[in-house]
């Protein structure tokens, strides 16, 4: 009966064809580097970054991107993660941690002076942030937020020498958290303790994402792209050369790994074979650092951060995202 009623109705107007080609989301040339992008809704997105000594946050309200006023002297921001429009956290240089409650930003004492590169949490009172400098004298850093304060977490003794930075942290729950870092370092937290896992990666692992405890992907490589997959029981690592080094990864569908990297590298990787299934690089000398998708749109952000000198250019790209991707 219902179908008859619906069938009697005039056909709804067809959706416009999905534009899956990358284009600039906005002109970020003078924004500063954009190192991270996240948002709770398609019309409530944030991209964070800046330049050495100066942090920048831009917000998309569905119509336009606009810079958000940050607390004075906010340094370069490297990553953000949150749960809702009134609960997200930013981390950055010099141990900076900012929390946004929907009204204002609050600087939180992080318990470290090291640069923080990544933040993730299972719940608003169970956050992890990671960092370090990657150079002699710097220390791989892990700090935890228990809802009240941040405190340093002792890292296990590394089998790998010279691990002086952890770059990202991500997990599927409070008892299943991973951190990745220098020289292919992977740390796993099972709810009780952090433990190093050797995954067969020589080069830095810079970011990770996944869709379940048995479908987790870490990417990196600096010069040549690498990807490491955890299938629930073991890690498997593949070199992706000639695909260049990767910085960012995001997944929505369990079988497609979206990655971005140096010199405009954008690709999708088959989650099973770990081989590129599509490559759509952006013609630029700039590097991409992060990718993120929500609903039917995917974003990639980056900039001139590899050069460490002016001009501090940013880059923000977007495209439509198929339901299967």
């Amino acid at each position: 009966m219902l179908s008859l009623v619906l069938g009697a109705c005039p056909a709804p107007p067809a959706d416009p064809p999905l534009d899956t080609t990358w284009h600039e989301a906005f002109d970020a040339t003078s924004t500063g580097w954009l190192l991270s992008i996240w948002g709770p809704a398609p019309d409530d997105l944030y991209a964070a970054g800046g330049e050495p000594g100066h942090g920048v946050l831009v917000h998309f309200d569905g119509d336009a991107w606009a810079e958000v006023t940050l607390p004075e002297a906010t340094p370069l921001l490297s990553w953000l993660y949150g749960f809702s429009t009134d609960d997200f956290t930013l981390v950055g240089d010099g141990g900076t941690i900012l929390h946004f409650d929907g009204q204002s930003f609050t600087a939180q004492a992080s318990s470290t002076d090291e640069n923080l590169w990544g933040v993730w949490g299972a719940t608003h009172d169970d956050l992890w942030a990671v960092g370090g400098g990657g150079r002699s004298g710097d220390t791989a850093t892990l700090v935890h937020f228990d809802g009240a304060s941040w405190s340093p977490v002792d890292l296990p003794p590394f089998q790998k020498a010279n691990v002086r930075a952890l770059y990202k942290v991500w997990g599927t729950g409070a008892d299943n958290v991973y951190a990745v870092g220098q020289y292919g370092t992977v740390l796993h937290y099972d709810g009780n303790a952090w433990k190093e896992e050797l995954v067969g990666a020589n080069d830095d692992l810079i970011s990770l994402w996944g869709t379940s405890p048995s479908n987790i992907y870490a990417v990196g490589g600096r010069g040549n792209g690498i990807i490491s997959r955890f299938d629930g029981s073991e890690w498997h690592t593949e070199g992706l050369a000639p695909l260049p080094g990767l910085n960012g990864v995001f997944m929505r569908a369990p079988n497609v790994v979206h990655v971005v990297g140096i010199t405009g590298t954008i690709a999708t990787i088959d989650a099973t074979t770990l081989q590129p299934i599509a490559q759509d690089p952006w013609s630029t000398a700039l590097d991409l650092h992060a990718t993120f998708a929500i609903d039917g749109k995917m974003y990639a952000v980056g900039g001139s951060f590899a050069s460490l000198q002016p001009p501090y250019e940013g880059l923000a790209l977007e495209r439509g995202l198929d339901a299967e991707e």
Partner: protein
Amino acid sequence: MMKRWLAASCAAMSCAGFACTDETIAPATEPTVAEGIFADLGEPLPSATEEQLAAFERGRAVALQRFSSDDGLGPTFNVSFCGACHEKPVLSGSAGRYRNFLLVRQSLPDGTQVNTGVNGVQDQYAVADSPYDPTQVETNRIAQRNPIPFFGVGLLAEIPDEVILANADPDDADGDGISGRANYDRGFVGRFGRKSQTVSLEGFIRGPLFNHAGITSNPLPNDRKNELPVPSGTPEATGEAAQGLGHAQQAQAAAPDEPTVDDDDAPDPELSEDDLFDLVSFAMLVAAPRPDDPTEQTQRGEQLFRDAKCTACHIPALRGPRGLVPAYSDLLLHDMGEELADGIIMAEASGAEFRTQPLWGVTAVAPYLHDGRADTLDEAIRLHGGEGEASREAYEALSDEERGDVLAFIESLGGSSQRSDGRLPPSEPISAPLAYGGPDRPLSKAEEERFVRGRALFDRDQAVAAGLGPRFNGDSCRACHFDPVIGGAGPEDVNVLRQGIWQDGHFTAPAMGTMAHRHMLGDGRPPVDPQANVFEARQTPSTLGLGMIDRIPEANIFANADPDDADGDGVRGVARILPDGRLGRLGWKCGVPSLAEFARDASFNELGLTLPDQTGLTFGGSSDDDEIPDPEMTVSDLEDLVFYLSHLAPPPRSSVDPVLESKGQAIFVQIGCSACHRSSLKDSEGYDVPLFSDLLLHDVAAPEAVGIEDGTASTRQFRTSPLWGLATSAPYMHDGRAPTIEDAIAAHFGEADASVDRYVALTSGERDALLAFLSSL
């Protein structure tokens, strides 16, 4: 425009799944060798513009610039200038084994490796209280590297990725036993380095500058990349700059991973953008070695080379935008077998894979192979394994004459007329008497021949087959003594390191001796005594004029000794009597009694050459642990070497402002410097030897100094260093801690305190006069 790495993917993956419609590589049509690319080794491309030539010359100067700690050298380092590793036979070449360096890794159970040291390089020296840079404890894999020449690298940079990939056969699809696969770097086909690990010439300069010298630099900005001889900026921005030259897009100059800061006190970047630009330009503009005209022998050799399938990897030429580039390399990785494997992973290259080394100019850059293990080309061929094994066997099956033809062909690929057994150009004439590097008097014809023989021995890189090692600091005498000419002093990157055990205020020499060698044969770093807790560097003193010092009677040295400060001037002066009763007069601690003993001591302890018995001489050793029969030197060689040294003229004085210098000399005496730095000592014939030393030991160490004891010379005592040739023998002091003469004066303590105080009290004009005098010596 399609991205280069995507194009590479297409070539490697048969374009599966990708649109490869643009940038199609046109099929080769009767390619010819590129024009305007050949020159003598070290010379610029004949096709270079005037502007490029100017950059080439500026870049060459930067490559020869010595960095000091004031300039940013360190905090750890292997070398103090680029040319240190690229000197043979000319700048842009390679170097002897004394410039070998170590790659260090931590190998892990999952087959991965972590760089230890400085980005995987083990530095020898530290700019710190202790000059020894220890090996990181986690290091469990060490591999040797011999410096790599960079002839024609700008031409190699221009070669399209697709051209290199066209020769790749990673799965040996053609079944010839030779695969060949590309290494990659940021999406481009790697082509530089022993493992083709990088595509970026800028990176190949910035990386070693940081890893080996501790010199920081910022990446070139895009506008400068586009001005390089091989334009390297973004395609859109390069525009007209690329016309007439190959265009490597951003590949050749992009080097974002190299550190831009370090932990020393010099402001970063320590190399300016302009200097980096000139240095990269210099490298890009170095010409390809000019091949010799073919002869019947080289043509026979070429055919045998092809018949042995050497050309399967040593492909005669690759096609660049200017035409064929005959480097005799496919620039691909090949598994060279277990014997050559170094176990070092570099990007996609495994521990057994190496890039096919270009053969142009190879004859002039011995020793051969990645670690310099081969003394000769014949030996290098015979060490080929893995994918090169069949060709090696084919070569070994040839007759002696045929192998000679093959070698003649390889030697004809450029550089044969510039090949030297050391650093001296072939047939280098003797400098004029009393000039730098010349004899101390006119020589007879027979004496000239002997002087040349001795000089050649001093200069010659000693082969492993001749007995070099098993541990050594230099592979020639010249390896340390080359400033400003062969026989002179040496920069701090050839300092000798001494070790000792300091406990409860007492020094103990390790059982293995105080020498901490830098090099050993095979993969590894010579171990130091596990208890050693004090290290001290020894700067290379000049040998110029040693013969004159040798001829000073002992009595004339004893005459100035005042061990108990009987005259109460605060300056003692201790004559060092050796256990056999002879007076020590040479070395930083007066530990060597004569020139002949010096030659023996250095030959054995610095080079590892065992010595024959010589009546009345006791220094050096007669046996060692290598496989070469002892003695490894002959009496005749030693006598020629000593003849050369004994007749090597002292550094000539160079007066610029005699009035000022005369005033400075008076100040020198007035403030007490001449109490130790005596202007001259009489030789056996009564002539003045103007060495500005008393050849005695003095305590001039800093109050807190803890050094190395040597016989009766305490940790704090050093011989008064002769000052002749001062201006051309920086750095100064026993450990090279003082980059300038002013720094050296300020580094005197103890018995020199009063003189330093008086120096500090001088007016600036008086100091200028003093420095003018000292610089004129």
